[in-house]
């Protein structure tokens, strides 16, 4: 061990010197992640609020106005205005001025007072299906609320004693009570960013040695591949950890994301994930001959799969089975589960130990393959 460490030290030292010399790359590695989180945190927002609504009220009664106001008095809907003509809706929605139109028929209040069922029409812009589904949900909920109030009033009027709702529905949402997408996304972003920086920087650092021919001199020296790989990877692990801390800090300041669980556990899981990522980077570097190819391969392997297949944005559960099988090849998939568990839920390792095992297996496999491939060069 002491012997291994002896040769490791000069390699780590040299690698650090090169990283520090290359100020631009260092700045990119350290600050881009924090910058990305700011961008993504604001842009990747799935919260649906301030939907612009137009109301076409044919009834224009006290009840109909009350019903319309029940929407507008929330942060979810903003009133565009009351329309005079039904045909205006077409135009407004076509030009994306409004996203939803509420049409209240002329007999709305008469029917309700008579204790009969009344019909309203809601027209939703379905161009963005996610938003449309959410808006539909809001309208249903508010209408349900309003119906209940009318029902209670009717009960009271008819003198019924049992003016109590059969089920009192009181939802409570755990871990992210305000249902903010930022809270859900930030752990994912940490994984996404770490994956890209770690894989790209290691792949480039080894291919650079090939491209500049410096590997020749290392090959004939008594350095073995394990020493070279560990020595090269240590500085990038440290840089990636600093970048991860920066992301957490920005997440905390801008998006109120706090780590509910143990920082130590977070560090441990992150380290395991980084080793897997760096292994992937080394594997790429054994296949690529130029930094350009390495960069392309690294971004291709990391960016899209991590974005789409890791559960970062889209739930894996909803994917077709074949795609679900592919997600097992994306290391961020395991890391994200653990990260969300630690950051949002504050739970311990018992909740996600299986994910850690997968990560260790993945990292071990990738690293062994890359060391075998490095050996082929004669290291």
């Amino acid at each position: 061990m002491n012997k291994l460490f002896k040769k490791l030290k000069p390699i780590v030292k040299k690698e650090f010197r090169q990283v520090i010399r290359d100020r631009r790359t260092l700045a990119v590695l350290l600050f881009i992640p924090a910058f990305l989180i700011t961008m993504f945190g604001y842009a990747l927002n799935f919260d649906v609020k301030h939907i612009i609504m137009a109301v076409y009220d044919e009834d224009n009664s006290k009840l109909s106005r009350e019903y319309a106001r029940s929407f507008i008095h929330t942060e979810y809907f903003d009133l565009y205005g009351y329309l005079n003509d039904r045909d205006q809706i077409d135009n407004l929605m076509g030009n994306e001025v409004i996203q939803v139109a509420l049409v209240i028929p002329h007999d709305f209040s008469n029917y309700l007072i008579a204790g009969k069922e009344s019909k309203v029409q809601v027209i939703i812009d379905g161009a963005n299906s996610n938003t449309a589904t959410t808006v539909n949900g809001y309208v249903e909920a508010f209408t349900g609320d309003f119906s209940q109030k009318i029902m209670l009033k009717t009960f009271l009027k008819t003198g019924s004693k049992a003016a109590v709702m059969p089920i009192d529905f009181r939802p409570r949402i755990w871990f992210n009570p305000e249902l903010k997408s930022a809270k859900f996304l930030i752990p994912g972003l940490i994984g996404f960013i770490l994956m890209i920086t770690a894989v790209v920087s290691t792949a480039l650092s080894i291919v650079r040695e090939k491209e500049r021919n410096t590997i020749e001199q290392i090959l004939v020296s008594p350095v073995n591949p394990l020493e070279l790989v560990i020595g090269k990877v240590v500085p990038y692990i440290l840089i990636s950890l600093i970048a991860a801390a920066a992301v957490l800090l920005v997440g905390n300041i801008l998006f109120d994301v706090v780590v509910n669980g143990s920082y130590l556990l977070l560090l441990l899981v992150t380290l395991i994930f980084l080793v897997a990522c760096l292994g992937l980077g080394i594997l790429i570097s054994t296949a690529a001959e130029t930094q350009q190819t390495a960069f392309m391969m690294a971004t291709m392997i990391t960016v899209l799969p991590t974005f789409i297949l890791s559960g970062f944005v889209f739930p894996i559960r909803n994917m077709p089975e074949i795609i679900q099988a592919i997600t097992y090849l994306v290391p961020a998939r395991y890391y994200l589960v653990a990260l969300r568990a630690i950051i949002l839920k504050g739970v311990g390792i018992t909740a996600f130990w299986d994910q850690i095992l997968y990560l260790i297996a993945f990292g071990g496999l990738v690293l062994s393959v890359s060391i075998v491939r490095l050996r082929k060069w004669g290291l």
Partner: protein
Amino acid sequence: MGESAITVKNLTRRFGDFTAVNNINFEVEKGEIFGFLGANGAGKSTTIRMLCGILSSTSGTAEVGGYDINEEPEMVKKHIGYMSQKFSLYEDLTAAQNIEFYAGVYGLENSHFDERYRWVIDMAGLSGREHSLTGELPGGWKQRLALGCAILHEPEIVFLDEPTGGVDPISRRGFWDLINDLSDKGHTIFVTTHYLDEAEYCNTIMLIHAGNIVAGGSPQELKTDYIEYSMYELECDNVIDAMESLRTKNWVEDVSVFGTSLHIGTNEEEAERKVREELSDAGIEVRRFERIIPSLEDVFVHLVQEDKRISR
């Protein structure tokens, strides 16, 4: 005969169907300067890579510093120094940082480090420029620094692969002085080169062509043993036409162009008269004709042509 530093036995390396090195045998004595010559693709680099323990042989073996290249490549690596054809130090580190790095890799003790560090700086003439970026140093300095890093750990055997490629003539001269010093101190030097004038500095020369050793010996032996006829140099116009008209004559053993003159090998007693006659028939005037001592270049051109003729 002294002890041998390198012993090569039936060493062969194939890449698929292609035989890069074909069953070669030779010995390198301790402390000598051993020149390994051949054209690009002749098998020089493949041989060096095998001897440095970074490429295993297909069959046959070699001992370098007493260690088998296939069995103990790690031990081989500890006992050799290697300077590659292409500059391979870190250009984005300073000269001092490069030395420090290789000292660490070869496990130089701290006490020993200072002494070796000074030695490399002095040898490379880098005093005062230790903290310049390596990439910003002029060619000759870079090359001496590369040599310094390769022999920092005082290896018994030093491999130099085309060490003077792309270096100006004065630096080349200085570099060979360094090589001679090392050899005097007992290091064995295994050097490949394109420059045949440099080959004259070697104690022993081995010529490899198409994976085969075609000749070996001291420069003197090569000149006398392999050329069994007299060499003449002649100057005339139209050297190509002159060569064409002489080549077909049965009394001419060898004829080749050297710049603006022609070298002719023959056993004919009255060579000058016959050549002048022949060329004046072809309308070519001979301006100068004299007997020369064959240079290594003559020897190699002859040997390579011979080898081609045999393999055809």
